[in-house]
């Protein structure tokens, strides 16, 4: 029971991370597409300005909680996906300092350097996080000792790449909607139009991903083969996800940006939980032999640690959500050229 609670919390932390950092990873990737000049670039940086750092801590929290609650999963996942993870980390490093460094020197080349870091550092994690999670859904070649028997290229199988594209598409829509939410015309209109176009890409990738999931993973087993009591609550997840995805388009069509962004956020959380509900109680299925899989039972910490960490998470995570929500309200203004000239900004 304790392990199952932790599995849900583990999934929740990753889902919140994807939902929050998703928009700034997506928006960062779209910088050269959306911005027509340097002022617009600055507006895009500042549209993420007060948020990206707090968003990224959810990754640290998700990683930390994986370490604390499921140390074996943490060990196997991170050493198994070594090269992919290192690439994500370096990308995030370059991206993080790009915000702080870019505007500090009056030189076009200097700004170009950090713009490139932002784009690279946003796109690569979006893609590779998708590749990594699709591979978890699919299973990776781990032996009975949890030792990874593949290479970086093992992860770049068609299903993994499709997962990467799904995350990229989700985050691009999410990011352009965020920009539409935070800016005024013409940038707002441009972002909204782009979101509308990207949505069709997302739909195509999502349909392909759902079909490929049937052939490449065992995720649907949980939805089909389990007793009704288990299936009834989780069957809602794919329905809500699909509904949210369709609503994104509807709200974009009506120009209701806030609602479209919210629906997009629900879609991202839904996709994460769709996969994890199918995975349960596995965490990392072994593609070599199902009995080698990492499950919530053979990967978890001791009951004492799980209990202590449960108390910690139940106290601090609501607190974090409360003060982060407060900062989102504090900085809910539209970012514009005029506003940037009056306030401290990147």
């Amino acid at each position, binding site marked *: 029971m304790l392990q199952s609670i932790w599995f849900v919390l583990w999934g929740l932390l990753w889902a919140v991370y994807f939902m929050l950092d998703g928009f700034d990873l997506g928006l960062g990737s779209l910088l050269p597409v959306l911005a027509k000049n340097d002022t617009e670039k600055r507006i895009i940086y500042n549209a993420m300005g*007060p948020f990206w750092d707090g968003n990224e801590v959810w990754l640290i*929290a998700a990683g930390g909680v994986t370490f604390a609650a499921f140390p*074996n999963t943490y060990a196997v996942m991170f*050493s198994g996906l070594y090269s992919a993870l290192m690439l994500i980390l370096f990308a995030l490093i370059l991206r*993080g300092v790009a915000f702080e460094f870019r505007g500090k020197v009056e030189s076009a080349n200097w700004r170009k350097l950090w713009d490139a870091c932002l784009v690279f550092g946003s796109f690569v994690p979006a893609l590779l996080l998708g590749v990594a999670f699709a591979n978890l859904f699919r299973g990776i070649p781990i032996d009975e000792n949890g030792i990874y028997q593949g290479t970086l290229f093992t992860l770049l199988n068609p299903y993994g790449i499709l997962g990467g594209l799904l995350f990229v598409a989700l985050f691009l829509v999410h990011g352009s909607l965020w920009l539409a939410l935070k800016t005024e015309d013409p940038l707002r209109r441009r972002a909204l139009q782009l979101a509308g176009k990207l949505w069709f890409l997302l739909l195509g990738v999502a349909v392909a991903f759902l079909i490929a999931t049937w052939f490449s993973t065992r995720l649907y087993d949980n939805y089909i083969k389990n007793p009704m009591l288990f299936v009834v609550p989780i069957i809602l997840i794919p329905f809500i996800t699909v509904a949210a995805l369709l609503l994104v388009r509807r709200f974009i069509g009506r120009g209701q940006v806030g609602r479209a962004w919210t629906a997009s956020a629900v879609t991202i959380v839904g996709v994460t939980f769709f996969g994890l509900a199918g995975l349960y109680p596995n965490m990392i299925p072994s593609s070599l032999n199902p009995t080698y899989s990492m499950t919530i039972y053979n990967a978890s910490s001791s009951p004492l640690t799980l209990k202590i960490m449960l108390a910690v998470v139940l106290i601090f*995570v609501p607190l*974090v959500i409360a003060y982060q929500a407060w900062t989102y309200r504090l900085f809910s203004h539209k970012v514009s050229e005029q506003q940037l000239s009056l306030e401290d900004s990147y």
Partner: protein
Amino acid sequence: MDVLMLSRLQFAAATLFHFLFVPLTLGLSILVAIMETIYVRTKDEEYLRMAKFWGKIFLINFAVGIVTGITLEFQFGTNWSRYSQYVGDIFGSLLAIEATAAFFLESTFVAVWAFGWNRLSAKAHMVSIWLVAFASSLSAVWILTANAWMQHPVGYTIRNGRAELTDFMAVVSQRFAWQEIFHTTTGAYLLAGFFVMGISAYHLLRRRHQSFFTKSFRLGMYFALVFSLVEVVQGHIHGAEVAQIQPTKLAAMESHWETKANVPQYLLVIPDEKNERNRLELGAIPGMLSYLAYHDTQATVKGLKDFPPEERPPVTINFLAFRIMVGLGFLFPLLAGIAWLRRNQLEASPFLLKLLIVAVPLPYIALAAGWVLAEVGRQPWVVYGVMKTADAVSPISVSQVATSFAALVAVYSLLGGAAFYLIAQHAIKGPEPVEVVVNKEG
């Protein structure tokens, strides 16, 4: 080179680089908070400009500290997966608590502070920097508790083929952890004091912004003076604690080979690691090492030869790191003391000002030496007496680690170079001309 050595080098490089930025974050956040508090209390606009000027340096430095911290947390999984599996039950939970209780607070409110000048009342804005300062030090508390557990594991039992937590309070309340926290944060605060003094000295020497930098200098000076004095006393207590719980580290840092009673402290020693002796021992102070370690000149101090060779840490590097740290540790209160004595004649003391500019890197060197001693001195153990470093490394290939290590060196070089350039440029340029900052309510 093998996976173990490459992973160790990569981790050492990542940690030492990370710790170039962390101590300034810890100390400067408090100094900026003090400046802003003085502004809020006295309405003296100069303190507001000080908070903004030093705050900008703080933000650049903070950004690099944050991004390099992320790699550290994940490297336990990527490069030390066997370690993570073996002690994750305890060590992992401490890192997770740090993230949820401290890191979120720090990262969220640093943005509130940086972007909130016109959106919050002066008081609320001041609270945000205090929250950043508090959360930064709280973050250090958890990370250092985790490190202290590696130095002196408590509150666990070996069960199910791994170390499992049995007593959480023992882990978080152990004396050694609090010594380490005290020792490290004090070092960080004194570093920030010397940093502010050094940059202020640069401008005072050129007679620019004299009032601004005299005030800054004084704040930095008091900070450096208080914490460098505390560090001397506390460092000694911490050292005695190390003697108790890590006799191999003590023996290595003193290059002490034979177990004996009434051990002298030599003023000059040249270790000869290969032949398990010292090539040169000069200027004996009788019984001093026994006294320093156990507060008793007759006490027996275990020598390295008492331990099997495979359980001894390397000698020369620890011996040197210890001497660099302690030597600088004594220099700091001396420098800060002279600065305090001359505090009213700063402009008439160009030599002192020059000295203080040169002194800026010294606390960085001392702190790095301290970490080398803490970590290399613990070898061959990753968790002292429980798990060897060689057993902790991930089952990964040499090419993977070699590639990531090369990438790390490249990325960190770019990062370090850019950060140094930006901080130096901003520090040399000095504060912005007086500007009116309109706060919403104040």
